[in-house]
């Protein structure tokens, strides 16, 4: 078995096994090690596939697009698992952590990582589906870990809506399988008929009528898991109730991993039906997501829900970029995936620290955070600036490129509408964030929770280090926005695979 291919899946599996036996503190740091393992093996994969090569062995397969997604998972996981170490320490410090709960958390997070890397590395559309559904199952208890009414509700909606949504995608996958087996002599065992490479190579022979049905089902199904309208309703609940590092992973990369399926299917469907069909569906889903997010961001009262709706906004942009198509737009989409993942992970982890300090998820409860906790609040603020698409962060570069590609492709009206909605979202987020960060500190008798929480958290152990993962994440997001450097060839090859499928 090829070690480079096995690495990204093996590292979190090993992490999960170790987390099950090691003591809590060691296990927490081991989980960071496993996340770094995913990142380094992802970089190794990128080095092997960055110039257009393909690695394949058994059920696993990697090209530049795969490597890009594995790097994204690894980078976000490094931030999230590092922040997770401090998250668990905070909970333990407050006496709100049983050893069983800590172990369950660490094992499930690693299993979650393994499912995501397996999803993007699966050679087969059927196994991709299995891995995506598995992510729903392993994250269900992470969403519902608090056992309050709200978190049980969020977990229930999450599992039911996502399972139904992904079920629709399975029906679509079966339609694709039916089309592939009808298109010609099926290879023995039938498994190969669902391989991404087989589907790409035989896309022109697939029955157009059946592919039309399949395309609708696949887009709706994986779109549900990617947080796109119309099946987005689970997202704000699940992302606001999960512990901050898990929200970081779910918002930062899980949405993109589900969207990766749409990217792979798009080149296949386009070859069978021409580009307009998927483009129309994605424009509708993208604009719908942007409009919904902009509308609900305006009156938002909960800052984790604010970040969740911002994820719907960014997934809308990613869908729109994919609708535009072509190498330039897809390079922007891929850069957006990585930049959004990093910025959103930092924002959620920063929000987790704020929640821990203030004790309330309400935006109005956090006033003047910059004067009270300058480092945490400053990092949170910078992450929000990154999410708003301001320079020097990667999202600035990707959004500009996306607009350029959109106008070049003759979708000017769509792009103009989209960026009008982005502007509304920008104003809403900026207003809420400014209120949280600036102004007078609200440590007063009127907010007893923050007053009670504050002296308790001040002497927490190893406070000095907790800003480090967030700062590193921001630095990476800013670095990608300024200078792509050695990443450029990988991004170009990945965009080529996304735009034209597997040759």
């Amino acid at each position, binding site marked *: 078995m090829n070690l480079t291919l096995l690495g990204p899946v093996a590292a979190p599996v090993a992490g999960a096994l170790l987390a099950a036996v090691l003591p809590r503190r060691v296990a927490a740091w081991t989980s960071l090690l496993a996340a770094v393992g995913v990142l380094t093996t992802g970089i190794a994969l990128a080095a092997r596939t960055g110039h257009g090569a393909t690695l394949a062995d058994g*059920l696993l397969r990697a090209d530049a697009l795969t490597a890009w997604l594995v790097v994204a998972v690894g980078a976000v996981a490094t931030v999230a698992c590092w922040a997770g170490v401090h998250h668990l320490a905070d909970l333990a410090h407050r006496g709100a952590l049983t050893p069983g709960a800590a172990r369950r958390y660490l094992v499930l997070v690693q299993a979650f990582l393994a499912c995501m890397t397996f999803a993007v590395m699966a050679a*087969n559309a*059927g*196994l991709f*589906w*299995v891995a995506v*559904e*598995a992510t*729903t*199952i392993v994250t*269900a*208890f992470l969403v*519902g870990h608090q*056992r*309050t*009414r*709200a978190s*049980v*509700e*969020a*977990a*229930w*909606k999450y*599992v*039911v809506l996502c*399972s*139904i949504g992904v*079920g629709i995608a*399975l*029906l679509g996958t*079966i*339609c694709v*399988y*039916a*089309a592939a*087996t*009808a298109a010609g002599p099926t290879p*023995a*065992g*039938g*498994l190969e*008929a*669902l391989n991404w490479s087989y589907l790409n190579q035989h896309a022109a022979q697939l*029955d157009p*009528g*059946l592919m*039309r*049905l399949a395309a609708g089902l696949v887009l709706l199904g994986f779109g549900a898991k990617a947080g796109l309208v119309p099946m987005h309703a689970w997202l*704000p*609940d699940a992302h*606001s*109730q999960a512990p901050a590092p898990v929200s970081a992973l779910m918002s930062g990369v899980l949405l993109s991993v589900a969207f990766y399926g749409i990217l792979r299917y798009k080149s296949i469907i386009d070859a069978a039906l021409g580009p307009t069909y998927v483009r129309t569906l994605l424009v509708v889903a993208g604009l719908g997501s942007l409009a919904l997010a902009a509308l*609900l961001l305006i*009156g*938002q009262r909960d800052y984790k*829900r604010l970040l969740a709706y911002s994820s719907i906004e960014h997934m809308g942009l990613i869908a729109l970029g994919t609708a535009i198509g072509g190498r330039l737009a897809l390079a922007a989409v891929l850069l957006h995936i990585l930049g959004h993942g990093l910025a959103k992970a930092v924002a959620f982890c920063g929000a987790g620290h704020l929640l821990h300090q203030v004790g309330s998820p309400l935006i109005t409860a956090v006033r003047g955070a910059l004067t009270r906790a300058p480092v945490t609040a400053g990092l949170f603020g910078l992450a929000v600036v990154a999410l708003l698409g301001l320079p020097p962060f990667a999202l600035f570069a990707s959004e500009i490129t996306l607009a350029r590609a959109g106008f070049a492709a003759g979708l000017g009206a769509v792009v103009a509408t989209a960026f009008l909605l982005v502007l509304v979202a920008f104003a809403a987020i900026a207003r809420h964030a400014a209120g949280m960060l600036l102004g007078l500190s609200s440590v007063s008798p009127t907010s007893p929770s923050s007053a009670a929480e504050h002296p308790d958290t001040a002497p927490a152990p190893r406070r000095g280090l907790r800003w480090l993962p967030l700062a590193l994440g921001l630095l990476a997001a800013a670095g990608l926005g300024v200078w792509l450097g050695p990443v450029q060839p990988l991004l170009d090859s990945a965009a080529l695979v996304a735009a034209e499928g597997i040759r």
Partner: protein
Amino acid sequence: MHGATWVEQIFNLACGLLLLTAVGALWRRETSALIPILAVQGGALTVIAVLLASGHPDATEAMVVAAVVGLLKVVVIPLLLRRVRRLVRNARETRPLVNVATSLLAAAGLCLLAYAAARPLVAVAETPTARATPVGLSLVLIGFFLAATRHRAISQIVGLLLIDNGIAATAFLATDGVPLIVELGVCADLVLAVLVLQVLTARMVHTFGDGDLDDLRELHD
């Protein structure tokens, strides 16, 4: 050709049973009645899988798939559902969002819709069994309807299982079943999803004191 017609008759009977049980799940308001209905439906699905496996080019693999499906849908899932039901006593759909008579009419409409939607699938597959594919899609649509219009946690789980049975039936009828390893993965996901929902139902009963989904009103915008 006496044997062939005999096989065909069993096949048709199983397909009819699939549809009948789906409508039956809409008709009965007692949630306790849903579990045997699902078990019978699982049995019908297994019969279809076994019949198709005998004519499959790779018969042993297809038989393994049929055995796994049978074990799962007839034994494991009903067992898990019984445990969910034990959590919520006297659970009855007292006031479904859409009343039973209207639900049955809706089911008829959904079947028509399924026949229209399944046309490309029927057209592409050459096998005579593919003509029964609309039955699978009907199950999926009726499952959606059940999950959307009922208040009880267990009803929503049953809706989810109807959808899954429908997808499995579509896979068998249109393509002779998906590859073994994919089928195993799908089955594993299904069992785990039902287990997760069972635990969540227990937590819901613990925190809300009931398995009524109307209580899920904490989170909204």
